[in-house]
């Protein structure tokens, strides 16, 4: 609820009621030899009114459970809740004749102050956090700047699942290393060993998987997308021209084999070492920092062949999504978190006041 000009009538009405109650109190006070107290007719009336308002304020929570019932506009209810809630403090102070009383009534005072303060904090939070959410969250290519709060949990889980799927798409499997991309050497190899011509070279760092790379070379051309650069393309070796016999004639154009994705090992390692924990929300991760994340993904891109760049971009986008969702979730917790204190405390206060009323009235009757 924004504290805007629409609140003015409520502020005026609440102030007038507070002034009226105070005037009645001070007019009535000199009439009592022992001074004003909650046991006087005026004091008791003020207490009863205050308790009625407390019950009305508590009813807001019940009203929210049936938003479509004809009980008045929700805005009116909330405004009444806030401003009449503040009036309670004045009425209780007049009812108690500005005294703390015994330990029980002192405890009631503490509860009332806590309830009021938590409510005021709530108002402050509702003033500020929606604006923060509005201005701090930016739209991502594949996501609105903000998602419905009720879906955030599922969306975070979806991010994690999509990240894993992306890694598997580009690295083959999470459990075993991905084949490393072979590269072309400058000169053709001897005709007798055409398969060995393609030697593993940078950009991939040496990994155990490199050992199997030469054998996989002919497959690479078929497996690599058309967009691959020369580095990523394993060119079938040409047989030497003068050779009378072609020992290993390149096979006739066969259907391209779909082998395991090549060159995705850095992606797999990145995921296992850094990404998985981040997407699963386990512990702190450098990916939580957007600046660090940019450099991490840039470095990862430099380690993988061109056809895997799209995968890295996808992971970067998924990381950004998760960060955004986390930020949103944090703000949402702050936006509604104060209710965790305010609501139970309010109900506790109402129960305690009821106990106070029962005992006080019994004593009043006995008197």
């Amino acid at each position: 609820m924004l504290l805007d000009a629409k609140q003015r009538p409520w502020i005026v009405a609440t102030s007038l009621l507070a002034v009226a109650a105070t005037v009645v109190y001070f007019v009535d006070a000199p009439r009592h030899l022992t001074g004003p107290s909650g046991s006087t007719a005026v004091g008791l009336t003020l207490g009863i009114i205050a308790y009625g308002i407390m019950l009305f304020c508590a009813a807001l929570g019940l009203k929210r459970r049936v938003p479509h019932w004809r009980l008045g506009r929700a805005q009116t209810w909330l405004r009444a809740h806030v401003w009449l809630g503040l009036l309670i403090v004045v009425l209780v102070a007049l009812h108690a004749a500005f005294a703390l009383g015994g330990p029980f009534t002192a405890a009631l005072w503490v509860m009332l102050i806590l309830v009021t303060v938590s409510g005021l904090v709530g108002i402050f939070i509702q003033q500020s956090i929606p604006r923060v959410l509005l201005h701090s969250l930016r739209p991502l290519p594949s996501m609105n700047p903000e998602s419905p709060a009720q879906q955030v949990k599922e969306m975070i889980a979806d991010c994690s699942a999509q990240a894993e799927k992306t890694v598997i798409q580009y690295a083959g499997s999470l459990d075993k290393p991905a084949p490393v991309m072979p590269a072309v050497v400058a000169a053709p190899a001897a005709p007798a060993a055409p398969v060995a011509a393609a030697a593993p070279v940078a950009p991939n760092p040496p990994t155990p998987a490199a050992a199997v790379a030469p054998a996989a070379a002919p497959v690479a051309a078929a497996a690599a997308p058309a967009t691959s650069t020369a580095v990523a393309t394993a060119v079938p070796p040409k047989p030497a021209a003068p050779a009378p016999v072609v020992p290993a004639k390149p096979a006739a154009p066969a259907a391209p084999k779909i082998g395991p994705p090549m060159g995705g090992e850095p992606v797999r390692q990145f995921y296992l070492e850094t990404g998985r924990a981040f997407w699963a929300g386990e512990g702190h991760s450098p990916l939580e920092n957007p600046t660090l994340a940019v450099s991490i993904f840039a470095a990862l891109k430099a380690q993988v062949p061109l056809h895997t760049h799209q995968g890295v971009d996808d992971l970067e986008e998924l990381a950004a999504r998760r960060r955004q969702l986390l930020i949103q979730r944090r703000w949402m917790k702050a936006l509604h978190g104060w209710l965790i204190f305010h609501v139970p405390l309010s109900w506790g206060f109402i129960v305690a006041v009821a106990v106070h009323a029962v005992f006080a009235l019994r004593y009043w009757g006995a008197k």
Partner: protein
Amino acid sequence: MAEPTPPPPTPPAGSGPVPPAAPGTPAANSAAAATLPVAGAGAPAGGAVAAATVKPPAAPPKQKIITVITDFVEGDEGETETLDDPAEISELKKTDIFADIAESTLLMLPGTVARRKFRTGEVICREGEGGTTAFYIAEGEVDISIKSSVASAKQTKGGFLAAIGGFLGQRRLSGWQARVASALVPIDASVDLSYGKLAATLKPGEMFGEMSCLSRAPRSATVTARTNCVLLEILRPMYEKLLASKTFKAKTDEKYRDRALANHLRNVAIFDGLPEAAIERLRTTCEFVTVEPGQVIIKEKDLADAMFIIRLGQVRVSKALPGGELTLAYMTKGDCFGELGLLHNTTRSTTCTAYDHPKSVTGTARVGYKAKPSRVELVKIKQTEFAWLVNEYPAVKARLETLAKSRTDATESAVRTGGFYSQVPRNVEDLGLLQGQGLLLIDLEKCTRCDQCVQACVESHDDGVTRLVREGPRHDKYLVPSRCRMCLDPVCMIGCPVGSIRRTKDLNMLIEDWCIGCGICAKQCPYNSIQMHDRSDFAGLEIRDAKAKERGAEDREEKAVVCDQCSSLPQGPACVYACPHDAAFRVDARQFFQLSVSAR
């Protein structure tokens, strides 16, 4: 539905009414098309005419223009008879709608018309069933009706709260049902059905089933022979020829002139209170004009020669200024324009263009789907008639002068201040927000994301399905949730095969219970405001009337859901009513953004 039975696709031994034709020729195309709806001799005709026995012709295949299915006789299965002499052409030519179709055209489209005879009470086609043909009533009368099959969902929740809710819950307005009963259901025929009485009678010379014929949409109503009748069943190739025919167009326009134009004229503000004689004269002398989106209707500085009343669609009014074109207004059904030039006998002061939803929205709202643009249909009142009207009826002249003055003032003001629409952020037009007459906006500076709006939406509908999705584009600090905007031009209504989606008098969109779940409206909506829900999502949905099922009503897998603005509730939209933070509110976009601009 079992398709009414035109000639068989693969007729027995040499009986085929469709001779072979060279691929790509019109005959070949029509032959291919002809085979589609033809259910075969053994198929029931319209669900009632039983398998027809085909009499093989003695002669080698010739081009047959018309296939005649003989009278249905009790105990007999009927008979298909083909005519292959020139008499069949003259037979067709006798029918007024075929009068100006060239003989050569008829010869190129063999087998695309079937003459069908139905006994009293026979079902010709059934609501919801597939269909690809149109029917022309040559003799007799037919009844056309909608058999509502699915009841509103029941609230299944019970208990103490439900009991209190029954007392405190929002009550439906008492006039709601009455309003519905007086409204009209548009169906695939030349008449509209009344909601109070979902039936009408069609007479000789009238057609039905055109929409099925053109777009293969399911039948929108059930048609039954009221008397013994003779119908011409027409396939699409022939129907397209008819559409291009001046006679046919004239006939269609005349039907509109006879049945609806007088009412439309009476609803135009400047003609308010005109005597019947004047309305009648206008009705008989005006012309009908159809323009495609983007087409200029009148151009600034051209000589004024007519005024127009919008019958369907929207028109953008603009003025050329140094530096670009300034949009002054958008006009819609019932508005008139072009009267200024006629009144003062001068040139046009503005340009009026047929308008559609922004391309940026219609092109991307649904992947791979572009919403059908809607045409603009106009009633044109010629200068002579206008002059007569102004001279004869001073009240009309006075109203026109007032209107002209207000428009001149508005134009001058717009030009002086730079115009409203030129100041509205680009994003407002690109998002199609100006279409919204009941645009729901959520002020994100006030909204605490408590979800009360969605909860209220769910709770206030008996089926338990939300119409409000709190996601959508943003403009400034406002979220425009995916919820019906009550567009000026509700393109969602284009193509509903069963006339289930309609607009109420309050401009709300309403999807009636007989939605067949085809999803066309959801695809047509450029703003994703119509959702398709699996029927299992609906709480307590059930067939109320078992007899409806017996009549052929079927359970569908999905149902379209659109926001009805809670117009049956006295407090208005439940989402707005339930918002505790004053964040959700409904506006007429044109007024709202105008105020925003003024405030700036």
